[in-house]
């Protein structure tokens, strides 16, 4: 069985130094994450998601029940599919930097055929104990520009090691340890 692999990832997998996630210093407030535009949601995808999570709520997989009992004019996507898409966007950018927290709110019903575009923006940086944290405001919009999900994520980023002597203006001061 062959797995489909994103070319952007396979390039890093097969050549050059191992890919690294972002460093704390390099991330500025206001930085926009690369947005992620997903393929249109299909009923097959809802069925696959239901099977993967074993969440077989008929609202997502049974057209008749969703329409006649649910009164929802037909099946709609699990709210957590959108969260999954936003999670994909986050991990694409964070790579191996861990999430500490991730929350979303589903604001508009998502239906088969809808195209979601996920976005994120760094809104805060701070240090807690020994952890360097960033907060990312995240969300998704459908093809009509309606906000389907809003949310927030907090991730832990490492700092780069100290630059070293070559970049010091007066190296003799460092050698003499004039400050501390």
């Amino acid at each position, binding site marked *: 069985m062959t*797995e*489909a*692999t*994103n070319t952007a*990832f*396979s390039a*890093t*997998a097969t050549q050059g130094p*191992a*890919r690294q*996630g972002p460093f704390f210093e390099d991330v500025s407030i206001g930085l926009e994450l690369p947005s992620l535009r*997903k*393929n249109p949601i299909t009923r097959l*995808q809802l069925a*696959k*998601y239901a*099977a*993967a*999570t*074993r*969440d077989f*709520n*008929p*609202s997502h997989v049974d057209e008749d*029940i*969703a329409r006649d*009992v*649910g*009164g*929802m004019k037909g099946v709609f996507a*699990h*709210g*957590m*599919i959108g*969260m*999954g*898409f936003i*999670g*994909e966007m*986050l*991990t*694409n950018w964070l*790579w*191996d*930097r*861990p*999430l*500490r*927290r*991730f*929350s*979303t*709110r*589903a604001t508009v019903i998502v239906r088969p055929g809808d195209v979601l575009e996920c976005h994120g923006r760094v809104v805060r940086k701070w240090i807690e104990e020994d952890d360097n944290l960033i907060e990312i405001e995240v969300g998704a919009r459908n093809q009509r520009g309606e906000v389907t999900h809003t949310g927030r994520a907090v991730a832990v980023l490492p700092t780069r090691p100290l630059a070293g002597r070559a970049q010091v203006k007066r190296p003799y001061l460092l050698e003499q340890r004039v400050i501390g």
Partner: protein
Amino acid sequence: MAINYNALGKQTPWVETTVTQQQINALCDALDDHNPLFRDQAVAKGTAYGGVIAPPTFINLFRERKTELVLGELEVDLPKLLHGEQDITYYAPVRPGDRVLHRVKVIDVGRRKSKTYGELDHFTVLITVKGLDGKKLIEATQLFFVRED
């Protein structure tokens, strides 16, 4: 029809399961997410994680006896249920092969006005996933709304 507010505090027993690569693949396939961190041991090994990890929303797979809690205790009519919010806290990465315990607990119930659906009942469940050593791995609260007939 209102939900049963007396379900507040009701919880499933702790259930032990083993996280499998197959479960991770099924979720990633459904999301159409092909990040090798979740599947490719050779790539993931060279990262800070040192191996494959489960994707951020993997907690949605931990739902042993959750339906029983929602239908049997909260008395929800499933087609009327809407999942509104989810807030996940990560303590440690979850990896294929991990043997874990999870539990679902009703921690909040109430009724409020909604712009789209009028007055709605709502409830929140807390899903906790921990290792066999008792250390927490992930925790999530999920807020659900239940529409009227």
